[in-house]
């Protein structure tokens, strides 16, 4: 008997994808077209309105994955559900980390003259991305479902340990990368740029949350299918 509640939730969150994507396009319009060019970097700086929100989303979802993992170890009754939450969160963290590296590289080419520099922020972000990739490889290569859940959640906690290193890398080591944007008032961005950046970050987080809910439903469906196949009840 199909789980009606599960299908309703999936359709509900999938329906929200389009409106939130439209909201994201509006937010990008403000950043990529509406706001004036930077006096030093010119039009190139506009990629900041994509790169910074994407980087924040990567940090957020990797930390969220670790939080789900810790709660899963504490609340054993919800272990499977929280593992699915952690899995979906790391999926998003991986994608956003890759996008942060890509958009950062696109921004770096005209400003620094190179596609890649072994700068502390870039290097530590690459390390974070590699740990997230290793998470997925671990899940693929662990046949026992319970061992898979436990090992994967431990690796999610290890991945989150890297997030403060990435964030504070510009403070600890000398870096080409600019320092944090919102830390000092009037520090690195004017008020209008800061506002548009904040709006883009919030909308990107909202979009990522909707994608997370859809992805979590997909993971739930995959695990149900796997369970049916192992139980011998599935006939393709």
């Amino acid at each position, binding site marked *: 008997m199909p789980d009606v509640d599960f299908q309703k939730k999936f359709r509900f969150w999938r329906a929200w994808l389009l409106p939130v994507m439209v909201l994201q396009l509006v937010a990008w319009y403000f950043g990529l077209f509406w706001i004036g060019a930077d006096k030093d970097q010119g039009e190139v700086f506009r990629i900041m309105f994509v790169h910074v929100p994407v980087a924040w989303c990567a940090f957020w979802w990797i930390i969220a994955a670790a939080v789900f993992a810790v709660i899963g170890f504490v609340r054993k009754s919800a272990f499977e559900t929280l593992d699915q939450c952690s899995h979906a969160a790391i999926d998003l963290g991986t994608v956003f980390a890759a996008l942060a590296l890509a958009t950062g590289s696109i921004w770096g080419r005209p400003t620094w003259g190179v596609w890649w520099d072994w700068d502390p922020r870039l290097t530590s972000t690459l390390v974070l991305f590699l740990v997230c990739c290793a998470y997925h*490889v671990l899940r693929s290569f*662990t046949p026992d479902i319970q061992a898979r859940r436990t*090992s994967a959640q431990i690796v999610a906690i290890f991945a989150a340990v890297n997030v403060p290193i990435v964030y504070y890398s510009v403070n600890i080591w000398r870096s080409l990368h600019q320092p944090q944007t919102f830390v000092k008032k009037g520090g690195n961005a004017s008020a209008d740029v800061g506002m548009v950046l904040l709006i883009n970050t919030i909308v990107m987080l909202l979009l990522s949350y909707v994608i997370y809910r859809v992805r979590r439903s997909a993971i739930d469906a995959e695990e149900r299918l796997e369970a049916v196949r192992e139980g011998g009840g599935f006939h393709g």
Partner: protein
Amino acid sequence: MVPETVEFEGVGILNQLRLWRSQCWLVVEYSVRTVLLRKASWAGTLAFSACLSILFPFAFGTELIQRAEIRHGAFWAINEFVVALSVGRLFSVEAEGGMLEYLLSVQAERTAILFGKIIYTAAYLLSLQIPLILMWIIFYNVPGAAVASLLGRIAPLLLLFNLGTGTIGALLACVTARSTAKDILLPLLFYPLQMSVLLAAVSLATMTDPDTVMLAGTSEQSWWAVLGGVPVVFLSLAVLLGDLLFQE
């Protein structure tokens, strides 16, 4: 006057700590004894590191072999190969002796077993690094006048490097124990997490060598903080996750 119940609890905690310490030491002891009895693994890893010491610089071209710039890099790169082999064989003592299931079923504190393995790994790495340093001094023409100061600097670096590496390696060896592709997974997980320890060790070693170009930028304090902080963070995780890592 201290109530008897508080005194009794205090003695209980001390006894538990003593028991934990003896369990931890037992793991170190039997691991070390097994290596001493069957020296093939240790000798094989040493021979491998000797081969690398000779062959590694050829990858940079014959002109660079005499240069001081690759001296430190070569040492730590060869170290990384030694580390990979050592971490990959962390539970080989138990696996080859048919004791793995016994280890999991014994009534000992899981964190004691884990800490025992961490200490053993750090000591095992050091036992390989001592002859490696001698080969390095000879093959890479380390000036005689600089040997004492370099060794004085590298010794504490190696201790912290081995502790950080051993901690990360032990945790990940447990995490990947039930996976089907451990030989791929363990390096894939291990190297990104261990990278900060490696960077800190290389940077601090290079800073004191008068023959190398001074790296522009990062302070010594930052690197010492990284080298000391990583073992603290991962040892804390080992305490918190010890029971989960050793599930039967």
